[in-house]
């Protein structure tokens, strides 16, 4: 089906993809509940079709505020990201078919639209506009949980997201002043402008120490909101980094750290959605490393991994969400043995788990290995080592912990019903895509920004990966057997959010108390001074004061004499 055959649809290609979503969101805001789910699924599907058929090039220049904006820059890099964004919007909204919450539904559409708009942005200002759009739209998916905790988390999330946005804006301003161009293209770190932009991307990409909004927010969102959230924001940042900072060496090291440190947190975290958030962070590390290496192979690996990652991570969030939906909790300590009554969900979760772990025949295997190969091609051995370690570690929390502690392990005694049909359908489709990519990687490789010369299914590669995974499981099994595993335990894990949830308020509180004390002392002093002055003035000028007395005539004459005396002295001396 080509655009020529459907004139009505070809007119569609004259519209920026994001602008499909915005009227759609308006429509969703007024449609009755019954009609919203079809719209929410149908619209992204339409958009996916549009993205698929769009010609390459800079399609929609726009003059605004004297700036030349590029709303649609379509090339292979932007197309693959836009495509997966539309796909996941379809799947995510299918998963949320049961939802009757207008706010979440509108937000989901706006969020997806903004993310796609940002991907197609040809200049920094357009990027900024959509960048902030994702921030605003997405917070509603957290707030929609409608609890005190979610509200505060949402506020924190929003501040961090907008911080990223304003950094981008400031960077864009400086970049414009520096280069005379607002084109969003490959940049070199070095000037304040590019550092600001880099930092802006880094926040959304959850760089180490800038990462904690992710683990803070995702477990706080609604069941379906987390699925949507997990897809867009961070991958948009990955896209932006790939576009703007490919080959920036520091990214390799940042990425390496990112792959490693979250795994420890994931291991001991009790909330399964937070475990997944840490795991997400770790997966982003692979992509960031790929961008840092910057070779065609590495960038292909990043794009492919992002594509695959969105799917399997969504699948995992969906399965945990389904459990939460049925049991009311996502805490490992309260779950276990659910395979008995939720076998389909369990199987789908396992598909997600093996995908993320990089088991051959599943999607993770064919994409993650591209990044690893790129690292070893570049002889970055320490980094490569970190990636190998991280690959094994992923297994530990996402590959084993998620399915094992929820669906197997000890029997929690819960016997929840199987997930609703639409959830199973959405998860099934997602799982199918994970498997499809694993079985026929060529389909995905054809979409990648650069031509691909890579064959994941070589014997040594499969064997090496299987060794890594199986012995990892052996280690896990032994640890469980001998009680060395950290196990499940309720609790809160301190992370960098402690800095702004506890330390900063404490420090600021102390500072504020100090300022207040000083201010109070100052105000008291000023008040006392004023009171003294007023007292002084009142004592003299007030109704009882001497100055205000209408003295007897005698004293008047005294004054006359005094003044005369002064006058005489002055006059004589002068």
């Amino acid at each position, binding site marked *: 089906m080509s655009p020529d055959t459907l004139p009505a649809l070809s007119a569609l290609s004259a519209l920026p993809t994001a602008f499909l979503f915005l009227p759609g969101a308006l429509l969703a805001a007024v449609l009755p509940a019954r009609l919203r789910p079809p719209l929410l699924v149908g619209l992204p599907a339409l958009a996916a079709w549009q993205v698929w058929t769009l010609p390459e090039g800079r399609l929609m220049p726009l003059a605004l505020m004297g700036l030349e904006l590029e709303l649609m820059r379509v090339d292979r890099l932007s197309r693959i990201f836009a495509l997966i964004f539309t796909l996941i919007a379809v799947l995510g909204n299918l998963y949320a078919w049961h939802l009757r919450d207008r706010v979440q539904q509108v937000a989901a559409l706006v969020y997806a639209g903004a993310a796609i708009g940002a991907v197609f942005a040809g200049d920094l200002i357009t990027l900024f506009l959509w960048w902030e759009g994702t921030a605003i739209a997405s917070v509603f998916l957290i707030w929609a*949980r409608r*609890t*005190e*905790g979610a509200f505060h988390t949402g506020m924190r999330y929003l501040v961090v997201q907008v911080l990223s946005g304003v950094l981008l804006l400031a960077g864009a301003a400086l970049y414009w002043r520096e280069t005379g161009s607002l084109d969003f293209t490959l940049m070199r770190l070095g000037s304040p402008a590019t550092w600001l932009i880099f930092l802006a991307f880094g926040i959304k990409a959850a760089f180490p120490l800038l990462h904690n909004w992710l683990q803070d927010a995702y477990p706080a969102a609604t069941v379906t909101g987390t699925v949507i959230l997990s897809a867009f924001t961070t991958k948009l940042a990955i896209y932006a980094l790939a576009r703007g900072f490919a080959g920036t060496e520091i990214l390799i090291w940042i990425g390496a750290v990112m792959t490693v440190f979250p795994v420890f947190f994931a291991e001991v975290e009790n909330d399964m959605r937070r475990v997944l958030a840490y795991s997400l962070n770790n997966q982003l590390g692979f992509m960031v490393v790929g961008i840092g290496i910057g070779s065609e192979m590495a960038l292909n690996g990043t794009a492919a991994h992002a594509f695959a990652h969105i799917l399997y991570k969504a699948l995992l969030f969906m399965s945990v969400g389904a459990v939460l939906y049925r049991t009311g*909790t996502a805490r490992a300590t309260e779950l276990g043995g659910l395979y008995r009554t939720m076998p389909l969900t369990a199987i789908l979760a396992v598909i997600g788990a093996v995908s993320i772990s990089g088991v051959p025949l599943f999607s993770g295997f064919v994409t993650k290995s591209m990044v690893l190969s790129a690292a070893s091609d570049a002889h970055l051995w320490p980094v490569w080592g970190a990636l190998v370690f991280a690959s094994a570690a992923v297994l530990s929390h996402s590959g084993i912990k998620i399915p094992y502690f929820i669906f*197997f392990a000890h029997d929690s005694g819960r*016997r929840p*019903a199987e997930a609703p049909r639409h959830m199973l359908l959405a998860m099934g489709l997602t799982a199918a895509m994970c498997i499809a990519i694993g079985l026929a990687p060529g389909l995905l490789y054809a979409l990648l920004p650069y031509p691909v010369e890579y064959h994941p299914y070589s014997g040594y590669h499969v064997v090496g990966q299987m060794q890594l*995974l199986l012995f990892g499981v052996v280690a896990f099994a032994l640890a469980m057997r001998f009680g060395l595993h*950290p196990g499940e335990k309720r609790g809160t894990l301190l992370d960098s959010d402690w800095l702004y949830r506890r330390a900063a308020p404490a420090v600021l509180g102390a500072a504020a108390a100090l300022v207040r004390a000083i201010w109070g002392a100052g105000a008291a002093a000023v008040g006392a001074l004023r009171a003294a002055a007023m007292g002084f003035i009142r004592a003299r000028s007030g109704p009882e004061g001497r100055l205000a007395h209408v003295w007897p005539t005698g004293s008047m004459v005294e004054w006359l004499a005094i003044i005369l005396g002064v006058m005489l002295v002055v006059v004589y001396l002068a």
Partner: protein
Amino acid sequence: MSENLPPLARLLGLVERHFLKALAAGAALALGAGFAIDMHAKAPLESFGGFYALAGFVSLSTVLIVARLLRALLGRQEDYYGRSAVNAEQYPADQLEVRDREP
């Protein structure tokens, strides 16, 4: 099994019971294969046939040990950030469809 479980669940139960045996077999196979075929080593250590097996085992063990330390160091009560923080609160039930399977 006394419970009346769906067929799929019984299958999974089977898997759970025989998992360790399968794991042992698979691990042995993979290790053997590693020594049997050329690993096209690029990295210095990769040429060792059991490198990945070792890497997997050591990595996982490291993760588990470090994680224990981490919990000792950074673990706090669930309501560390307050009773109404996300960590401590319950997911609002009215947005869920909590249901047990019909026996």
